[in-house]
């Protein structure tokens, strides 16, 4: 099955093409087509993972641009690389299937599948229904292609496609100014990171002469790439991951991306967009691990982001924003894991996180679908109206908080254990984050489901639509059990599969105990403050620490800083450039035009309008040419 892995992204692509070409006239058919396509991909992905479990590994490449076309001065390898015998390889495009890819395929196809089913109910009656499904298909295709790519070049192409799709989907309700703004913000902010990625890819090619992950990793292992160059290159690549996975300081787009439809948020947060950054770092881990500096940077940024985002999650009153901060925070965890060398733990967390985060979003969507607001202070008491949502969301929140035996516990524990082994400061940060995560998640649960309804107007309880309910039920299962795949008591089969090593990390009783205690503490504080849907205690506390609260509410003023940068600095530079363009460049262009007119005006006098004069000039010209050629021949 792994040999035909290339067909996995092809199915959604076909669906996208057919919908774009005309099936969009029928929304129902478009949706069915899209769901069937992703279902086929899901089946194929299951087949692939079965193959991989049996030890399969496939890598196929095909030449895209042959070497002669890119040889020579166009792609200069640096002198050192040339001396080490590296020659420019042809640009090839290909796919590979290993454990990492297989896991990602499974995650992407299953989450896409569930989200698409969920959207049947959530998006019912939307005017852009078919378009929405077309872009969902394209989104899935891009992400699947991304995880299948076996070199940086192909990866970059799909990387950009993912960015494009997220732009299109976040801005699905583009007639809303906020959605359009959010889409632009997501696109532009991630683009800032993408510049780094592109530079990093080119930089690595400059030194290694190839785009293939495996080849570069091999050269890095052999020490054929200078250590400094390796660090610079991989950190530039990490810039892309920072943008895509919303790490500090490029995290600002993700909370705003909540303007998109909630299922899209689920997809972005769980499987496609933000997972791409973590996947990229996991994929390049064999390169990364040869640079301790880069490792330290990745770990630090990851740990800091985890903590930093969690603090902002403490105070947000928008249910989806809380989830968004939690995503940023959890992604920080994953980066932290990769940065400290526990790559498989990071991927494991990504795997588990995908399911329960998707579930959380779908539950939030269910709530929002009912009350038509994101503000938690206008909810409350929804537990009786949405019993299924309440149960599933509570399970997902427990999983996220890291309580055994739910999936989140196992991966989080593995990461904490790895951090404790060598990075005590990061361990402390991570442990604090665990507590904050538990707190803000249960703040959400209490504010939403318990107590009485605080909003205005009458909310009609109609329960969850069948497709949405089905999706929740489907997702709650892996949210509970997916952690067992990486259970240390079972020898951590997941970790061994992904990292490819035989040894497994052991169980850390101390770490597990402390993290569970901290999590329970967080839940307890949440209960004390918000239990039963009360909001007064929280309000009182925030009034007492008003400056800090304000800092968190204003998201550390980072967005304001960026806005100021854009409004003042960039626009100032832009105005300068505009003036330069209008005065100097346009002046030169206009001057050229004026000069041409001037010359033409004087030259037009030789246009007598007499055909015979022209013919005469023609023959005279031929004559001169003939004489010149004859002269040349005589000279020779």
């Amino acid at each position, binding site marked *: 099955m792994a040999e035909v892995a290339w067909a996995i992204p092809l199915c959604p692509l076909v669906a996208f093409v057919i919908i774009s070409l005309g099936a969009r006239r029928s929304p129902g058919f478009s949706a069915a087509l899209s769901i069937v396509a992703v279902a086929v991909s899901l089946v194929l992905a299951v087949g692939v993972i079965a193959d991989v479990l049996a030890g399969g590994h496939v890598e196929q490449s095909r030449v895209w641009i042959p070497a002669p076309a890119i040889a020579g001065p166009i792609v200069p390898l640096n002198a050192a690389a040339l001396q080490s015998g590296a020659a420019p390889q042809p640009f090839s495009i290909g796919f590979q299937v290993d454990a990492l890819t297989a896991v990602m395929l499974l995650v992407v196809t299953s989450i896409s599948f569930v989200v698409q089913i969920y959207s049947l109910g959530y998006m019912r009656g939307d005017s852009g229904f078919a378009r929405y499904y077309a872009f969902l298909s394209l989104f899935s295709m891009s992400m699947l292609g991304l995880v299948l790519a076996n070199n940086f070049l192909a990866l970059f192409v799909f990387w950009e496609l993912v960015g494009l799709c997220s732009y299109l989907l976040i801005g699905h309700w583009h007639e809303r100014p906020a959605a359009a703004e959010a889409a632009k913000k997501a696109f532009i902010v991630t683009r800032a990171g993408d510049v780094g990625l592109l530079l990093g890819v080119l930089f690595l090619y400059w030194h290694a002469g190839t785009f293939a992950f495996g080849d570069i990793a091999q050269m890095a292992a052999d020490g054929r790439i200078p250590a400094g160059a390796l660090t610079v290159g991989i950190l530039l690549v990490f810039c892309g991951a920072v943008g895509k996975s919303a790490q500090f300081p490029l995290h600002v787009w993700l909370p705003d991306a909540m303007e998109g439809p909630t299922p899209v948020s689920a997809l972005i947060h769980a499987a496609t967009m933000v997972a791409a950054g973590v996947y990229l770092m996991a994929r390049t881990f064999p390169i990364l691990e040869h640079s301790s500096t880069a490792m330290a940077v990745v770990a630090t940024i990851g740990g800091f982001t985890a903590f930093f985002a969690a603090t902002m999650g403490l105070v947000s009153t928008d249910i989806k924003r809380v989830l968004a901060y939690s995503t940023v925070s959890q992604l920080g965890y994953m980066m932290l894991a990769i940065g400290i060398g526990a790559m498989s733990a990071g991927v494991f967390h990504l795997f588990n996180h995908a399911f329960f985060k998707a579930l959380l979003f779908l539950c939030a969507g269910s709530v929002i679908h009912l009350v038509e607001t994101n503000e938690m202070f206008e909810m409350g008491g929804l537990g009786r109206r949405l019993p299924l949502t309440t149960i599933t969301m509570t399970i997902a929140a427990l999983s996220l908080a890291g309580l055994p035996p739910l999936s989140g516990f196992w991966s989080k524990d593995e990461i904490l254990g790895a951090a404790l082994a060598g990075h005590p400061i990061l361990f402390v940060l991570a442990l604090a984050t665990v507590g904050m995560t538990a707190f803000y998640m249960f703040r959400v649960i209490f504010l939403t489901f318990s107590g009485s309804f605080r909003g205005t107007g009458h909310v009609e309880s109609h329960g969850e639509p069948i497709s949405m309910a089905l999706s929740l039920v489907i997702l709650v299962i892996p949210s509970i059990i997916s952690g067992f795949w990486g259970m240390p008591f079972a020898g951590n089969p997941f970790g061994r599969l992904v990292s490819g090593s035989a040894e497994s990390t052991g169980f850390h009783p101390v770490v597990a105990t402390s993290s569970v205690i901290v999590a329970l503490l967080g839940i307890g504080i949440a209960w004390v403050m918000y239990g039963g849907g009360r909001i007064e205690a929280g309000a009182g506390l925030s009034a007492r620490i008003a400056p800090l609260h304000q800092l968190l509410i204003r998201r550390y003023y980072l967005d304001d800083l960026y806005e100021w940068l854009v409004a003042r600095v960039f626009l100032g530079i832009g105005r300068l450039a505009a003036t330069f363009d209008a005065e100097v460049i346009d002046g030169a262009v206009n001057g050229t035009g004026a000069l041409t007119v001037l010359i033409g005006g004087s030259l037009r*006098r030789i246009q007598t*309008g007499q055909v*015979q004069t022209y013919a005469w000039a023609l023959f005279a010209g031929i004559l001169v040419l003939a004489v010149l050629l004859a002269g040349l021949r005589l000279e020779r």
Partner: protein
Amino acid sequence: MPTALPPLYPITLQHGLVLGAALFSLGMIGALTKRNAIEILMSIEVMLNGVMVTFISFARHAQGPALGGQIFAIFIMTVAAAEAAVGLAIVIAVYRLRRSVAVDTVNSLQG
């Protein structure tokens, strides 16, 4: 009457080429000095005939039975016929418009 050309042949390639060049140049004089558009067309026909003589001389003296030169002459003839048809149509249209076929009165495109 003999129907096959004799192998001994006093007329060389250069004879035909010089005849072609002479016709071409004479036609050129006509094309450059005549005022009547129809006369210019006729002069151009003379020039084309000069070219055809050249091609046929080459065909006569070239190796092999392919006769590429004569085929080129056929194409030239085709083009000449097309040129005459379109040229005369233009001349008649211009005459209808301006009551004149003198090329030096047709100078609307003067710069």
